[in-house]
Structure formats: structure tokens, C-alpha cells
């Protein structure tokens, strides 16, 4: 059901953990749906120096979190914003249709952490929207999958 890459990122997650006094923290998802992702960013001079994640969820949720952190690490904020759920999925050699929402969550978690960073520093990041009400969003995605 999962690609080798997904299994590799699930079994050996990259950047799992927490960052103390992180520049930005984003939490998306909810326990009701069975996945929560939390992303910690350490940003210096507009560059993501470090990134960590914690995830409650299925294999795909862990793997997409892990891959998303890999894709934004060392990048500028602008570059990180361009890491879409599609990019995460492609980097993992695809996901089963019912798991596509996990990659959406991963993208949103990064955005939520960037939003938190922007709020904390009183700056505006072009093209970054405030985190969405996740509950509704998640359900829509699921229905599309079926």
C-alpha cells in the first residue's frame, strides 16, 4: 500500500523532535480525525536553520511530516512557502488516494508554523494565508478521495 520511500520515512523519520524557543510553531489537524502535526521552525535571517516535527497519526502522516521537514530545511521562507502537498507526495513516490490529505496537512503545518513566526515578529509574509479551520477542510478532502 505504501511506497518504499513512505515506509523509509515512517520507519526512520527525519527531524523528529522539538525545538525549544522555536521561531515559529504550527499545529494542524485534530484528534477526532486521527492526525495532528506539529512543526517547529528555527528561522534566522529569513532562512530555516532547523525544523522539527511531532505527529500523531498513521504511517502516511508521519512520512509526510518527515518529508516536509526535509524539503524546507535550509530553505528561505519564500522557498518553503512553495513546498506544496504535491511536492511532498512526489518526493515520497506517491501516496494511496485515501492518504492524500496527510500531505495537505504537512503543507498546512509548515504554513501554520510560518504564520506563527510572522505573528511573533510582526511581519507579513507575502502569499501566506492564516491557518484554515482545519476540521471542515479535512472532511472535504476525505470526501474527494472516495
Amino acid at each position, binding site marked *: 500500500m505504501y511506497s518504499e520511500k513512505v515506509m523509509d520515512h515512517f520507519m526512520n523519520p527525519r527531524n523528529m523532535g522539538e525545538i525549544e524557543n522555536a521561531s515559529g510553531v504550527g499545529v494542524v489537524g485534530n484528534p477526532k480525525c486521527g492526525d495532528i502535526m506539529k512543526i517547529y521552525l528555527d528561522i534566522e535571517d529569513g532562512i530555516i536553520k532547523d525544523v522539527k516535527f511531532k505527529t*500523531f497519526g498513521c504511517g*502516511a*502522516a508521519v512520512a509526510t511530516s518527515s518529508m516536509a521537514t526535509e524539503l524546507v530545511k535550509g530553505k528561505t521562507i519564500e522557498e518553503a512557502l512553495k513546498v506544496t502537498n504535491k511536492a511532498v507526495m512526489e518526493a515520497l513516490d506517491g501516496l494511496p488516494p485515501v492518504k492524500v490529505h496527510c500531505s495537505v496537512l504537512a503543507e498546512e503545518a509548515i504554513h501554520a508554523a510560518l504564520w506563527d513566526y510572522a505573528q511573533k515578529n510582526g511581519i507579513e509574509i507575502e502569499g501566506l494565508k492564516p491557518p484554515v479551520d482545519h476540521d471542515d477542510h479535512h472532511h472535504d478532502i476525505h470526501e474527494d478521495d472516495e
Partner: protein
Amino acid sequence: MHKIYFDHAATTSTRKEVVDIMLPYFTESFGNPSSVYEIARKNKQAVDEARQKTADLLGADFNEIYFTSGGTESDNWAIKGVAESYKSKGNHIITSAIEHHAVLHTCQYLESKGYEVTYLPVDEYGQVNPEDVRKAIKDTTILISIMYANNEIGTIQPIEEIGRIAKERGVLFHTDAVQAMGHIPIDVKKANVDLLSFSGHKFHGPKGIGALYIRKGVRIKPLLHGGAQERNRRAGTENVPGIVGLAAALELAIRDMEENNKKMLELRDYIIRGITERIEHVKLNGHPTKRLPNNINFTFDFIEGESLLLLLDSKGIYCSSGSACTSGSLDPSHVLLAIGLPHERAHGSLRITLGDENTKEEADYLLEVLPSVVQRLRDMSPLYEEFKRKNK
């Protein structure tokens, strides 16, 4: 790596003896039981013998056993067939919130056709209160369908008592005995049931074969129309190898039941104790004693079931879970929600279902591996992080 199969409620291997009994019916004894020549007549006889054997094992009569393609067909047939036959009497069906989807989705389908369905709640252990059944019966009630034992949490229902109430009130009673058959003693007369579904592959029989017990006198419309097989009630050429295999497997399961159950009960309670002692923040789902001898179901707080299954798989242990990701839908198991677990805890369930071939060594390996696997996922979980922060 040694593989440990702990998912016997999903399916079981077909016993070697059963396969041996079935094999000739694929090759030299291939005749259609409806034909008149010798090899066909012999197969008609083989089907009859299997029917008699199955009937005897359940305390039923020869003419009360109907072979089907499995549990799902038996459940569909029992409910739809009775609903249609008795629609002039009423349109109300009583079932429980924790039935298998083969029953629940059939009931939902009937709702879309104008039937009214009451889904009875269960208590925290997953038991239906017979008094709730009594109170739910109305003049229009035509059928009660309550499972014998639950497939996820193993809780055994008070079937005899519910059957007595149904009898008193003149309402037909169907039970889905797919998980119970071959695992606990079942006598259709003592159980006071009018219809009973079961499936071969849950007790080391073949897949694709099951049966429906239909008490003499119960009216039921066919689900499948066609030839005159199964006394005009279930069309289609008989699955002769399957039928022969089903009866043989049931006979062996019942013959060995006492011995196997003694062993499995010990192993079950050993694993339950072991998990409770070694891992914090866990809950045993289902009834502590009124449960199938092979069923173990735990919730592990702060983690999600599919991840747990994948990590156990990587250690060579095969189990199942009631998480959304394994149920193939958005919601976690309806059974775990019905016993009152909140969503996040229902997502973190693990079902271990034993078979007679499982050993204490395998249980010890599970108990050795499970704590570290659970801890690994908890270390990754933002819910656990939050819990630790709050409880510092």
C-alpha cells in the same frame, strides 16, 4: 524472522485435514449436484452429508441449514429476506450499534427503502441490555438482529435472554454468529434464535463459504434468484468443496473447542495482564470475562493504530486496529465509539486475536516488543508531549 499471526478474527488458515477432504471435489469429483449421473449424485450426497453434519453440530434439522458464500451473504439474506417477507406485518427492525457492517449497512439500505431501524446502544463493555430490546419492540417490529459476539472487542451478547424476549413477543430473532461459531458452544434451540449466520474461514475452514440457519416455519425471500438449489431458496451451483470443507472444519473446531479454549484463555489473560503491567495509559476494551477466548483489544493513549500496526509488522507481528486509517473511512471504529471511547482514543486501538497455534513464546515476544513500539510512537506524538507538559 519468525512471523506471528495474531489476527484470527480477520481470517484463519484452512486446516490441512480440511484441505485434504476438499481436494477431490475440485478434480475427479467435480460433478454438479443437480445433475443425474453418478459423479453428480455422489456430490449431491456429499452436500447432504455436510448439511446433516452441520445441522447436528448446531442442534438444528437438516432442512434448516442453507449454504451461502459467507457471513456477509448470510447477514444480507437474513435481514433483507425477512424484511421483505414480513412487510405486511410491519417495517421495524431492531439491531445494535456495534454490529458488523454486513448487518449495519444492510439495515441502512433498508431504511432507504422505507423500513424503520432502531440501533440499540451498548454499555461500556459492549453489551446490549435485553431490557432495551424489550422496550424497543413495537407492534410493527418484524426482526431483531443482534450479533452473538463482537468481532472487534470480543464481547459476547446475552443471546439466550434476547431470544427469549423475542419469542415472548413473537418477533423473529437473527444473530450474526460469524465470530462465535466454532469458538464457543452454540445450540440454535438453546439460543432461542430463528436465524443464525456464520462463515467457514473464521474457524480454519475455507473462504467463500458460509451458512444461514433458518428455523423451520420462518418465511424468507431469496436474495439470489435462479436455479432450485438449497430448496429453492438460494440459487447457484453448490460450492461443493467449500460446503464439504465448512462442515469438516466446524466438526474439528467443535471437537477441539474445549482443549483449545483452555489454552487460549490462559494465553489471552496472560497477554492482557502483561500489557496492563508493562504499559501505562492503556485500557482493555470489551468485557473482562464475557468475551471470546481469543480476543484482546487495547487502547493505547496518545498514539494512532495504523502506525502501531506498521511497527509491529516490521517486527513480524500481525494484528489489526480500529483506527480510521484501517477502517477505510474518516471515523475510527463504530464499535469503540459506541462503548464510549472518544475519537482520539478509538484511533489508538490494537486488536490481537489468538488461534490455537499461537504459543506462550509468541506472547512473550509480543510483550517484549510492544512497550518499546508504543513508547516510540508516544515520543513522536504531540498529544503525549502535551500530556507530559500538563502533568509535570
